[in-house]
């Protein structure tokens, strides 16, 4: 019966300073199945896969392939045993073509020349067989993310890998590309490949996987057959409690106007036109206004202009009856604006700083934290410890953890802790739940609603329809730099919202 399993990881334990990332975990992958690995951010999924791929050596535990114990010391060993991985961030050479990327490291040559014709034939065959449509001569930097991912998959197939690991493959894809990927994965499984699918998106797991193993806080919780389970059960196993998918909130009671934008125009950096064309709107106290739209329709530029990261060409921005159109970022912050940025690595955090330093990134100059220009480290530590406890930010070494080593969800929690603790009159939150698991999403939504109920204004920018529909009190649709619609989430449907977002409909 042992041969039923193509890969077995038995009793894997891996420790990092201050944290046990994997605690006695067992994972058994059957031949030809799609096996999902589910867990919150920081549950130990990536670590476990890194162990399988030879990037980490476990302290305890064994790995078996076809019932025989094997030792994987580095990714080359993994490749030899037919284990391939599509990383969350692709490992492609940008200026090479698809074909060159696929054969990179495995070039078959004749007299030192590449045998491109033969390899091309093989690649075309492979892509036909598995339905992976991609132009082998296109350059990586010229094709879409979805195509890049296909290149990665072809790379694994070209190496005759039997076990394919997908590390959160859908995080970077559009909804349509996700559907296609699901289809491809099913194809691969049908052709006898065994797939390990790391994800925290329950819908995807329910639609594509055969079985699912769940990890929580580094511990193995269990393995279930997808056909015998429900989304609710999975999420309970993952988070350890009931998770509400609906955002609980009372009726909004909009009060005074907090943010007023009049005729705002912002020049684009990538093209000659204006990214934002003469838009006007207001956000009032006690309401969550959501700017919905497909990525790249001017949402980012709008936020940059509101938060002071970029200059507005014309128009007027008023925060609490104070004109802040030309105010500095610091001034806006002191006026009561908080900003949860779109890209937490680029803007939100100094990754090489300690967590406590990031938590005081906008407060270090306050008299509370400095004395004649000297930082009061005790105060900083105390403040950081407070926030860490209050917002449940988890990290290996507490306040002095290097931010880079923290999981994405906890990095985001740190930003949210910092921004919400300013008790902002206006909170600008840009895709605050991007890449996070259901538990963290629930937590963030709860906090947004809490801000609203405290009588503060929240401006939410989101690309996710579910989020737009469930969290907001009022929806503004942005299309090609203009606000083309204002909708009431209670009176509209996702389909109708989709029409507005794609520019097919407008009411302003």
């Amino acid at each position, binding site marked *: 019966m042992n041969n039923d399993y193509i890969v077995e990881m038995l009793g894997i334990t891996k420790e*990092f300073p201050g*944290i046990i*990332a994997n605690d006695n975990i067992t994972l058994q992958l059957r031949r030809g199945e799609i096996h999902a690995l589910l867990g919150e*951010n*920081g*549950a*130990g*999924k*990536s*670590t476990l896969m890194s162990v399988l791929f030879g*990037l*980490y*050596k476990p*302290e305890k535990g064994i790995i078996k392939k076809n019932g025989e114990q094997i030792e994987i*010391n*580095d*990714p*080359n060993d993994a*490749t*030899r045993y037919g284990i391939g991985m599509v*990383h*969350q*961030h692709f*490992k492609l050479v940008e200026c090479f073509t698809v074909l060159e990327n696929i054969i*990179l*490291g*495995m070039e078959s040559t004749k007299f030192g020349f590449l045998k491109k014709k033969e390899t091309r034939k093989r690649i075309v065959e492979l892509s036909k067989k598995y339905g992976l449509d991609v132009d082998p001569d296109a350059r990586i930097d010229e094709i879409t993310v979805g195509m890049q991912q296909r290149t990665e998959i072809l*790379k694994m197939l070209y*190496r005759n890998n039997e076990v394919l690991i997908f590390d959160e493959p859908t995080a970077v894809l559009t909804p349509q590309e996700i559907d296609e990927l699901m289809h491809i994965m099913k194809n691969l499984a049908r052709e006898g490949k065994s797939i390990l699918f790391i994800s925290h998106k329950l819908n995807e797991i329910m639609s594509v996987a055969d079985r699912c193993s769940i990890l929580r806080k580094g511990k193995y919780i269990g393995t279930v057959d997808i056909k015998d389970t429900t989304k609710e059960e999975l999420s309970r196993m993952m988070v350890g409690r009931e998770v509400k998918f609906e955002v609980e909130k009372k009726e909004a009671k909009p009060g005074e106007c907090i943010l007023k934008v009049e005729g705002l125009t912002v020049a684009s950096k990538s093209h000659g036109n204006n990214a934002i064309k003469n838009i006007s709107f207001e956000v009032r106290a006690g309401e969550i206004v959501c700017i919905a739209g497909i990525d790249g329709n001017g949402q980012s530029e709008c936020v940059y202009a509101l938060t002071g*990261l970029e200059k507005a060409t014309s128009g007027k921005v008023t925060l609490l009856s104070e004109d802040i159109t030309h105010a*500095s*970022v*610091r*001034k806006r*912050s002191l006026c009561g604006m908080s900003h949860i*940025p779109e890209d937490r690595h*680029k*803007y*939100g*955090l*100094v*990754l*090489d*700083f300690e967590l406590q*330093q990031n938590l005081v*990134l*906008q407060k*270090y*100059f306050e008299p509370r934290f400095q004395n004649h*220009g*000297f*930082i009061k480290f005790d105060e900083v530590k105390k403040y950081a410890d407070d926030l860490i406890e209050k917002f449940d930010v988890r990290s*290996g*070494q507490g306040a002095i953890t290097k931010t*880079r*080593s*923290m*999981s*994405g969800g*906890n990095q985001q929690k740190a930003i949210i802790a910092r921004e919400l603790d300013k008790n902002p009159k206006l909170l600008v939150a840009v895709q605050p739940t991007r890449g996070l698991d259901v538990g963290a999403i629930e937590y963030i939504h709860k906090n947004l609603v809490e801000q609203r109920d405290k009588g503060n204004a929240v401006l939410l920018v989101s690309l996710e329809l579910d989020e737009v529909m469930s969290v907001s009190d009022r929806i503004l649709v942005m299309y090609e730099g203009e606000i083309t619609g204002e909708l009431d989430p209670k009176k509209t449907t996702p389909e109708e919202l989709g029409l507005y977002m794609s520019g097919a409909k407008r009411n302003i």
Partner: protein
Amino acid sequence: MKNPFKKKLALPSLSSDRTKTIASSLVSIGMGIVFGCLLLFLIACFDQFISDYQDIPVGQSFKGMLVIILGVFSSAIGGGISTAYLIGDMLFRATPLIMTGLSAALAYKTGLFNIGAPGQYLMGTVTSISVALTLGMNGVNGFISWIVAFLAAIIAGALWGCIPGLFKAFFNVNEVITSIMTNWIAANFVTWFFSTMKQFQNTLTVNKTGYTITTGTYGVATPKLFLNFDGSYANGGILIAILLAVGVYVLLNKTTFGFELKACGSNKNAAKYAGMSAKRNIVLSMALAGGLSAVGAALYYLQGDIEYSWTNAYMSLPQVGFNGIPVALLANCNPIGTIFAALFMAYLNISGSQLRILTFYDSEYISNIIIAVIVYLSAFSVFFKSVINGEHKLFSFAKSKDGENDGAKNFIKRFADKISSLKKNKNTVAADKQSDSAEKECVKEDNNG
């Protein structure tokens, strides 16, 4: 109840990392010296068997090795200059190096590459000498002249450093390009200035042209304090340099200003997002770096007995300016570390000159090559640290699976295993050799995820 030992328990892991850092630095320095010695041997062989001169017997290479290693203590094996004097000389030579090292380190922490130190150093040179001489000639008290010249040099260096900073901040011009330009502008300016200002030229000493008058002539000299060292050039300047290194350390690590500088250097966008003025910080950081370089020049030329040769200044930039960069990098940009890195460089410098004096290796080029090789290998400390940590791919066998270093026997066995497995894999060695490290990095990033 808080456990009082908790804090103490947390320390060893941190300090062991520090121990590893220091150990790896020492190992790399050792490797550098071994390699330098090997080179000495090869040079002697070359000299004997290939070149026409044949003036370095192979046996001399062993004496050379001893001299290189002993450095300031090399007079012990026979030589006229006393150890005390050499130590004093080392301290004096280290002084400007500490300053230019600090200059590079400070800029680097702010994300700037200050290759403009030579130019800033030259501006410090010209300002300190001319101000000191002018005041001295007019009968101003030597001590006051020293202070004024010192401060003037700082201002000149800071203004000179500002220029690339301003270009970077307001026009986004890469500071490396502007720094190189300002370096040569400074070099030409200095030559023109001293050739025009006849009153600063030394015309009294026979057979000497192209030198400035020493500031000591008018009583402007850095106090010796207690640092006599057998009549060497050593003086209170080294103490000022050390004090400033501590000052830079405090500035970077304890103040809000340092916090801003480091945030800007580490992630410019996040700094901007947090409301810090990146422009202001870039300009200030370059100004400070310029000031620090200029202090190096002031401490060197205000010693009192040093004459500055200006005739060829337009053709070559002062080495001490550039050497600040390796000093800073050797010290991993730690201001306190720059003190030791600069002393190490000065030590090697003495080794080099002793090599010329005490052995048959009398060419300046040879001693320079040896020093360069040692410094070059000393910069491998990061590499050696990764080996010590067992992180390096090729050397990962140095660590067993359970994370403990084990005996030499196992070590060799695994080395053999590794080699054979490497051979076996040669054909299958898959893909992405270069992306392996990137992979590791990336996995580290979502460590717990």
